[in-house]
């Protein structure tokens, strides 16, 4: 049977189109400009010139003035970390989606499919609830560690169970789906038993938001991406073999399939858990980001990984811009906007090639 989703995706850029390296370079430039543009959007009346002026003050020591101080604070303390966290979180989640889809050879999976995000979500919700019950404000470190701990435990159980069945892709998928349901239910349970204040906090958090972005969070995600992305790019060839040739043929092509899968899943777990613990649940980007990237640069992971990061980053960045602009001054959480933009976009991707009839 023809696969509906993949039939909608092109193989490689056709002749006459720009090279994929050029597209990725252009994507990076667009990303930088988009981050700058997103800082402008809001009620404070900040212009693009103000953004570059602020950057010049902090990077090149250009002198500031008292009248500019308020603008400078809004840019550096609110808008810029928010824009950067949005972009970096989107990049991390999208790259995680690219890796998971390749490893499981399934275009419908994302970090959610292995139950990673729901587990991280429950871990964070539990940390918030327990901290509030103890009369403390939950620290970000405790929330991160709790999110990371639960998603690591889930991934270890998933991999353990899957390895008993010789780690077949379908086994991973089925076990992951079971954990998805389990942790969705557990997160609902924490909401059910939480008091009013904690409930509001957990619910707000489960929407997925970059409202409270800090430079500390930007730094953590930046360092994480700086470490993991080069490694993932270096494993792109192995990922190609697993994704396109299958486990058995990939092994015969010289790839240590079990080890590659284990290490890549650990990388994805860490990326997902850290991002989810900062931003809450932003689910759709891990699914849609890779598909948008595949549409532009094809399926080769040597190009798909970098462009997937760019696509996911831009998706969340612009979702946040839309969330701030539509009902200004009310800010719609980015998780809601991503789902509202992502779902129709995804359906359009599937249907645009008119391939349903072929399936």
């Amino acid at each position, binding site marked *: 049977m023809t696969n509906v989703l993949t*039939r909608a995706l092109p193989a490689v850029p*056709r002749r006459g189109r720009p090279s994929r390296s050029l597209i990725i370079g252009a994507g990076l430039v667009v990303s930088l400009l988009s981050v700058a543009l997103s800082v402008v959007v809001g009620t404070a009346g900040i212009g693009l010139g103000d953004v570059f002026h602020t950057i010049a003050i902090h990077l090149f020591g250009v002198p500031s003035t008292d009248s500019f101080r308020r603008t400078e604070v809004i840019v550096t303390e609110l808008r810029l970390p928010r824009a950067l966290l949005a972009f970096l979180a989107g990049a991390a989640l999208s790259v995680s989606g690219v890796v998971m889809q390749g490893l499981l050879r399934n*275009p419908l999976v994302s970090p959610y499919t292995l139950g990673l995000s729901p587990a991280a979500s429950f871990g964070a919700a539990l940390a918030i609830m327990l901290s509030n019950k103890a009369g403390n404000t939950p620290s970000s470190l405790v929330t991160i560690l709790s999110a990371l701990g639960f998603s690591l435990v889930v991934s270890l159980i998933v991999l353990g169970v899957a390895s008993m069945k010789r780690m077949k892709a379908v086994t991973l998928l089925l076990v992951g789906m079971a954990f998805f349901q389990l942790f969705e239910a557990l997160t609902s349970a924490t909401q059910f038993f939480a008091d009013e204040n904690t409930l509001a906090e957990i619910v707000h958090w489960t929407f997925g938001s970059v409202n409270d972005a800090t430079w500390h969070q930007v730094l953590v995600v930046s360092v994480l991406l700086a470490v993991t992305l080069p490694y993932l790019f270096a494993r792109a060839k192995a990922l190609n073999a697993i994704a*396109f*040739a299958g486990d058995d043929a990939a092994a015969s092509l*010289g790839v240590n399939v079990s080890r590659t899968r284990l290490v890549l899943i650990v990388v994805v777990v860490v990326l997902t858990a850290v991002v989810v613990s900062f931003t809450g649940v932003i689910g759709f980007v891990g699914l849609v980001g890779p598909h948008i990237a595949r549409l532009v640069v094809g399926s080769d992971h040597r190009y798909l990984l970098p462009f997937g990061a760019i696509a996911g980053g831009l998706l969340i960045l612009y979702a946040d811009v839309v969330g701030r602009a539509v009902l200004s001054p009310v800010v719609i959480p980015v998780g809601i906007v991503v789902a509202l933009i992502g779902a129709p976009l995804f359906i359009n991707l599937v249907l645009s090639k008119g391939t349903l009839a072929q399936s």
Partner: protein
Amino acid sequence: MTLSVEGVAFSYSRSRAVLHDVNLTVRRGEFVGLLGPNGSGKSTLTKLLARVNRLRTGSISFEDRQLGRLRMSEHAKVVAYVPQSGEPTFQLSVRESVLLGRTPYFGMRPRRADWEVVDAAIEHMGLTDMASRSVGDLSGGQAQRVLVARAVAQEPEILLLDEPTSALDLRYQVETLRHVRDLTRGRNLVSLIAIHDLNLAARFCDKVAILQGGRIVAFGRPNEVYDRELLEEVYGLEVDLFERDGAVQVHPVIEARPGTAPHGHAPLPASALT
């Protein structure tokens, strides 16, 4: 100059032994068919040779090299494995698919020499006209040829095929086997194919090994090995043997339905099988 399999045994679990004391010697330029009913161990043996499954008992050597001791990337330069063609999950062009065969040879980016090998493999398999097409848009036979081209691009000395013709219609089965036979002879390879069709194996393979319950019960030229009593015991089915153009052919004896001729189908023309 041989592939030598000695005392190989394998089990997926303690209670499920799949291969017992398998011994096999295949010379360069020989195309060997692994035959046997489902569960007889032919695919498992192929996967052990391809290092998909890990060898724990016995030895597999090729020209005095223990294949299990080679690094995986070195092993991949000696042994290529062709699985059964399936629906691709992600779209990839023919050229990119064949490039996967160069995985053991390049780092991050393929070199010009890799692309030259890829294009030569594509040409060899008659796929040049469709090199930029997506594999998902090809017919089953063409997609299977892409997998063989990928193995050719791997520049192996041993070519393994695991039931590559199971999902193909008769024409593509014949076409695939003809390509593999020609490759084996042209490049002086050792080729082994796990296959169900006794008649195609008899027509294209130089030798066949018949497996039953994880053991090789017969090995040699098809004309010598195909024995009515042996095949009936292995497959649990009454068969007839006859010869056509020098190749032994096997026919299951099936009770004719009332009102139909006992041999209502026409045999393949000999020209289709050479």
